[in-house]
């Protein structure tokens, strides 16, 4: 019996431990702006999108809340970071914290709206929050610049010494470092007992309630945390591009980040990162061929992905041999 507990304990702990390939992966990621210095801009974008997808994964993959309005928090982070830099202090790190703070606050407020109801209700409410924020950013043009976007954001040097350069190398490192830190924290978070209760809620809400998990407070906390991280991603985007426009609230952004997460795999922290790399490279390739009709290919991809089966598309070894499917998935 005691041996049994220790093996299951070990297997749980093993999942939380860092393996050699992860360390290698992160080392490569951090070296990439130097190795591929001409692609630093896209590396920066990938890191930001990966962070955004990671935050969605916390609520979608680990808690099972289907949200179509995650861009609301992304945009909140972007606008507040940009406004803070423009009006108060151009320091990036403080701006990042401000962006995270406001987005987290918004998330805490909105978490009250997602506790009840069905998937459809949640979809509608999250979508509605995104649209309201977009309307606000559009109408409050004295503050946000309205449809023209918020221009003239000048960022100060990072940590007081690294200026953001045109090639985007500092920006890429900045985003990658933030991504790494958030990733480490998120990893602790989902592997903690708290994370285990989230998965219990995702798998069966009623049973989770029956064994004494206070479902509502868990949902509120995880929604706030996810909103904070999405705010960080938005703040990074605004700071590294020096610009915030209505585009950050667009429905497209919420749908894209969902697609990214689904490409990489839901409920797996590396899913967001892998999805971001594949998605951004794909977008780069396809939109250089047909810039206008890129959404068609995204749409086709989504339809095929769902019809083939999400689990099977990202695990090519299950394509053949139906008999083994139950074992591998």
């Amino acid at each position: 019996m005691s041996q049994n507990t220790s093996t299951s304990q070990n297997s749980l702990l093993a999942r939380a431990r860092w393996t050699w390939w992860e360390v290698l992966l992160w080392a490569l990621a951090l070296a990439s702006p130097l190795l591929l210095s001409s692609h630093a801009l896209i590396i920066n974008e990938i890191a930001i999108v990966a962070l955004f997808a990671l935050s969605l994964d916390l609520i979608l993959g680990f808690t099972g809340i289907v949200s179509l309005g995650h861009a609301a928090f992304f945009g909140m982070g972007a606008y507040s970071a940009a406004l803070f830099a423009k009006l108060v202090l151009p320091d990036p790190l403080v701006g990042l914290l401000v962006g995270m703070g406001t987005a987290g606050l918004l998330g805490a407020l909105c978490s009250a709206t997602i506790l009840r109801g069905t998937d459809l209700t949640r979809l509608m409410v999250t979508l509605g929050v995104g649209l309201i924020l977009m309307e606000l950013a559009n109408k409050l043009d004295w503050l946000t610049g309205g449809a023209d976007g918020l221009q003239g954001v000048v960022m100060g040097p990072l940590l007081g010494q690294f200026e953001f350069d045109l090639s985007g190398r500092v920006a890429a490192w900045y985003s990658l470092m933030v991504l790494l830190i958030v990733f480490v924290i998120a990893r602790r978070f989902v592997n903690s007992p708290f994370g285990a209760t989230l998965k219990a809620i995702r798998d069966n809400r009623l049973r989770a309630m029956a064994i004494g998990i206070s479902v509502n407070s868990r949902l509120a906390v995880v929604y706030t945390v996810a909103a904070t991280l999405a705010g960080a991603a938005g703040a990074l985007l605004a700071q590294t591009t020096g610009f915030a426009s209505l585009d950050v609230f667009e429905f497209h952004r919420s749908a894209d980040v969902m697609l990214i997460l689904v490409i990489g795999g839901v409920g797996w922290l590396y899913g967001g990162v892998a999805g971001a790399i594949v998605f951004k490279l794909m977008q780069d390739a396809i939109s250089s061929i047909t810039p206008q009709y890129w959404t068609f290919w995204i749409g086709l991809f989504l339809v095929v992905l769902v019809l083939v089966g999400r689990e099977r598309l990202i695990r090519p070894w299950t394509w053949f041999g139906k008999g083994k499917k139950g074992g591998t998935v």
Partner: protein
Amino acid sequence: MLTILFDGIAYGMLLFILAVGLAVTMGLMNFINLAHGAFAMVGGYITVLLMQKWGVPFLVCLPLAFMGSALLGAVLERTLYRPLYNKPHLDQVLFSIGLTFMAVATADYCIGSSQQIVQLPEWLKGRTEMGEGAWMLGMGHYRLFIIAVCAALTVGLQYVLTQTRFGSRLRAAVDDQRVAAGLGINVNWVFLGTFAVGSGLAGLGGALGAEVLGLDPSFPLKFMIYFLIVVAVGGTSSITGPLLAALLLGIADVAGKYYIPKLGGFIVYSLMIAILVWKPHGLFVRKGGK
């Protein structure tokens, strides 16, 4: 003021016709279909193209728009939608977003991104005014026409749902799919028929609404939220719920845009969130259903 009320009712009726198919398919199959607006767009484009290219009269276009969208709906239901009925909601959302994106890009590619204009026949263009001052009622003939058509359709739908054999089968399938199948109702056929009619109604709504709502390739995305509001607020168990929700939405939207244009869609969205937080299953829920 009465004019605004009148316009709001016309708008609401139009939204109801556009969304009623969605309400039925959602209630029936528990399928979150974000691509419903695409069928409305197809109906709108059928009308516009037939009128521009071949000079088909407007009134002939309307049934054609209905049939075209219904046919498309039936084909898609049979080939793409059916395997997804038992999948998780995330899959359904992804699938229907993908379908919407494809529809938007396809319309853009084939027809162009510009706004399409419907040439109304002469007898629908005028406007009648009654009363005076604050109580003046100005009725656009076209809006009157929309209200008449939609009211007739609503009565017809209500009749089919409550009085006919198909209606009772449909209600049985909505309440409990398995028991209905066990009683010998061919649920698949009921689903297919309902989906096709729902898509057809959306197409008809798109054709009627092309003049009022505007028609361009981004139509499915722009109005997706409105259809969903009608369904989520109205509930999916009857057609009176969505009808009332659509009227409420139409009047609130027109009045909001007229009196406080600065706020835009703000009122409608806040109202929706407030209602959904208060009553997560919609305003009009029938007891005893699934």
